């Protein structure tokens, strides 16, 4: 614009005819530029209307090993990072993965700071009032971890899975655990369904301490400030493998379903239906061809693939 204006200004004194050719060329160039700009705009509009962005941002917590954590090189790593990369490759999406505090995940998703949450988040009706979830890509039982020398610790981890949807069975399992946990201080990550579970079923017998991250309650378990923690079995297994936790063990049954949700899925804004469909398809494929099982065994040494 300014270039064209400058030229005509400088040539203003000279006879018009001599410069007609140049003027027309300039007009054409200008028109071409405008057309190009319009086309770019149109393409962007179309892309928006399609509602399936080619480039997306995935957020994780980065403090929940081995699901998602920051490795020794300072990079995000873990089961969900591998899975996210696999799903993006399947869906032909260009994904960048960022870390975000657990507290801020859902609020930030809602305001559009990123497009997908993959942070070991349980799918629950409460959360589904606010955001939407893909189908689950993992189901991982929740258990207590306590000192081996404690009454509960002596029992060790049972293979039983208590389905909270079956209220009678759930109550029986809870009643068996209650006397062993009476008066104990139990650490749990705040804002989680595990906390909701602990409050609902054991709130009357245990003293609950809430932590921002699981790493913090692990530290306090080792320091002896809490008698036990309650966590997903996969993360607890990874923590308890460290030498400073040699005296601690998972104990009692594993709890699934009910208030603990319908497994772990990716969180997506309600209006992003196309993105949800893309992810559901990719997750379905990854489960069907055994990718989820392979990654699960790589990171957890056990299979967390959801069973239909």
């Amino acid at each position, binding site marked *: 614009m300014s270039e064209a204006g400058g030229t005509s200004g400088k040539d203003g004194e000279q006879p018009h005819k001599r410069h007609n050719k140049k003027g027309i060329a300039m007009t054409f160039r200008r028109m071409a530029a405008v057309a190009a700009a319009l086309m770019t705009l149109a393409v962007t509009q179309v892309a928006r209307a399609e509602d399936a962005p080619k480039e997306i941002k995935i957020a994780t917590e980065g403090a929940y090993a081995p699901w998602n954590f920051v490795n020794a090189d300072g990079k995000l790593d873990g089961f969900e990072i591998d899975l996210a990369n696999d799903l993006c490759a399947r869906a032909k999406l260009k994904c960048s993965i960022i870390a975000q505090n657990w507290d801020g995940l859902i609020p930030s998703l809602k305001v559009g700071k990123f497009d997908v949450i993959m942070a070991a988040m349980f799918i629950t009706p409460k959360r589904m009032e606010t955001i939407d979830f893909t189908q689950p890509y993992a189901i991982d039982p929740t258990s207590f971890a306590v000192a081996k020398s404690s009454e509960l610790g002596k029992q060790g981890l049972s293979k039983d899975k208590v389905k909270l949807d079956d209220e009678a069975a759930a109550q029986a399992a809870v009643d068996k655990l209650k006397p062993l946990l009476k008066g104990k201080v139990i650490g749990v990550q705040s804002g989680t369904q595990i906390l909701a579970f602990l409050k609902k079923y054991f709130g009357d017998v245990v003293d609950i*301490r*809430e932590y921002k991250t699981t790493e913090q309650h692990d530290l306090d378990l080792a320091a002896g400030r809490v008698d036990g923690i309650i966590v997903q079995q996969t993360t607890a297994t990874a923590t308890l493998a460290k030498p400073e936790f040699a005296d601690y063990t998972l104990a009692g049954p594993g709890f699934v379903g009910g208030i603990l949700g319908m497994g772990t899925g990716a969180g997506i804004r309600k209006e992003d239906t196309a993105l949800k469909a893309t992810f559901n398809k990719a997750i379905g494929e990854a489960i069907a061809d055994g990718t989820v099982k392979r990654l699960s065994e790589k990171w957890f040494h056990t299979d967390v693939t959801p069973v239909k």
Partner: protein
Amino acid sequence: MIDPGFFLEIIPKLLAGLPLTLQLCTLSVLFGFVLALALALAQQGNNRFVLWPIRTFVSVFRGTPLLVQIFLIYYGLGQFRPNLQAIGLWWMFREPYWCAIIALTLNTAAYSSEILRGAIRNVPRGLSEASLALGLTRVQTLRLVVLPLALRQALPAYSNEIILIVKGTSLASIITLTEVTGIAQDLIAQTYRAMEVFVAAGAIYLLLNFLIVRALQLLEVRLTPYRKR
């Protein structure tokens, strides 16, 4: 957008954390004041072996964030459990409550000792000389002449410090204490309505600090009878 019914629902829940917030700030301001006064008086002398450790303590606690101090005292010292058990202090460091009070106390003591040190130094030298000349002992001079004037002078600056501690108690939520801010964060995790919850929590702190400022202003007027008309 903003729903008044929701405010009515969350404010009582947030107020449930107020007793803990008040305990944390009352106890730490109380302990902190005693410690600060001792540190300020100890610095009136010239003994290098007294001055040097105090100056170090003050500059460390004034020069580092309260958040870092709380983390160090709670998680940092938590790793020295056998040593702390050996000297019989673990019962205290085991509890997040006492760790928060220790951190807040040491922090406010460092700041307040500077306020008090300055205030004591600003009492005109002639007054204590006159008092000694009248036959009062050094302790009597301090108790009856220097300290009343110094404390009165320090009050405006000290009320600032109290407000900082009230706000500082919000950091206790990071070591599992569910005071007002801790409850606010829980409520956000349940409702995802950060705006309303933090506005309500902020209003509680604002009101609390307003009351403290008013109380200290009244105290200041009472302690300044010669300025009354």
